[in-house]
C-alpha cells in the first residue's frame, strides 16, 4: 500500500526536479568541448603589427582572459568598458581575438572605444575561431599559466561575471 502511494509521488518529485532545474538554463549556451583541455596550437598574425606572428606557445606562463571580439559585434560594445576597466587597473592579462574583421575596421574600433588588450590575434576568416569552438561574438576563455582552458563565457561579461567567475579562476590558474 505504501509502495503504491510512494511510487507515483517519487516519480512526480523526480520529474518536477528534473524539469524545474532545466527551466533556468539557457539552451543556446553550449558547454565548451575544450574545457580543461589545452588551447589549440596556432600561429596567427598580430592585429596591430601586420606581418608579426604570435602563437599559442607565446602566451604560456601567465593566466589570461582570451576575448573574442569584432568591430561589427554590437554586444561587444556592452562588455568592452568592463574589460577595459579591469585591464587598465592591471587586474588581468587580456588577450584579444579579433574575429572575422577587417584590420582597418578593428583598429578604428579600438581607437574609438579603447584598447585594453596586451596582445590581439587577428583571425580575418574565422579559421582560428573554429579551432577554439567559437560560435559567435563575444566569447571569452580563461586560460591558466599552463595553457589549459578553464572557463568559457559566451555572453557579454558583466562586472559580476568578472568578480565571480573570471578573476577567481585567473588567480587559481597562476599556480
Amino acid at each position, binding site marked *: 500500500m505504501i509502495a503504491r502511494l510512494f511510487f507515483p509521488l517519487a516519480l512526480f518529485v523526480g520529474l518536477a526536479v528534473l524539469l524545474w532545474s532545466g527551466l533556468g538554463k539557457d539552451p543556446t549556451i553550449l558547454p565548451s568541448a575544450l574545457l580543461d583541455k589545452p588551447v589549440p596550437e596556432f600561429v596567427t598574425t598580430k592585429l596591430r603589427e601586420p606581418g608579426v606572428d604570435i602563437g599559442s606557445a607565446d602566451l604560456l606562463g601567465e593566466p589570461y582572459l582570451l576575448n573574442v571580439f569584432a568591430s561589427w559585434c554590437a554586444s561587444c560594445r556592452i562588455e568592452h568598458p568592463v574589460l577595459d576597466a579591469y585591464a587598465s587597473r592591471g587586474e588581468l592579462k587580456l588577450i584579444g581575438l579579433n574575429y572575422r574583421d577587417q584590420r582597418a575596421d578593428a583598429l578604428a574600433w579600438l581607437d574609438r572605444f579603447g584598447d585594453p588588450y596586451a596582445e590581439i590575434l587577428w583571425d580575418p576568416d574565422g579559421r582560428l575561431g573554429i579551432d*577554439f569552438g567559437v560560435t559567435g561574438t563575444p566569447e571569452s576563455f580563461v586560460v591558466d599559466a599552463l595553457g589549459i582552458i578553464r572557463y568559457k563565457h559566451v555572453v557579454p561579461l558583466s562586472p559580476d561575471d568578472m568578480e565571480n567567475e573570471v578573476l577567481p579562476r585567473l588567480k587559481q590558474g597562476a599556480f
Partner: protein
Amino acid sequence: MRALLFGLSLVFASAVWAIDPLPFADADQEARFRVLVAELRCVQCQNQNLADSDALIAKDLRKEIFDQMQAGQSDDEIVAFLVERYGEFVLYRPPFSGMNVLLWIGPLLIVVFGGIGIAAHLRRRARTSVTAPRAPLNEDIDW
C-alpha cells in the same frame, strides 16, 4: 557604351552570386557534402542543420568541411574534427555510448515499463470487478 558595359557587369555579377560558390571535384563529393551538412547541427542557431543555416559560423563550417574534403579527409575524420571543437552537440545522431544510451533507449524504456504498468493496472481492475461487482447506482434510491 560605358553605361551598357556597366549594366552588363552588374547582371553578370549577380549571376555569379547566385551560383553555389563551392567547386566540387565531382558529383560524388557533392553528394557526400550534402549528406554531411544535413546531419550536422548549426552551433549558433541550433534548431537548424548546417545546410539550412545562414549564420556566419555555419558558412564558415561549410567552407571548412568543403576544404577538408578537398584535402582528402574522410567523413568520419571531418565529423571527429567538429566534435573535438564543438562537442557531440553538433551531431543530429549522437553516438550510442555513455549517457547517450539513455537518450536512445529512454523512450523505449518508457513505453515498455508504461505498458507493463498499464497492463498490471487493467488486470487488477478486471479482477476486482469480477469478484466484487459494483452495486447498481440507483438501487437504494427511492424515486
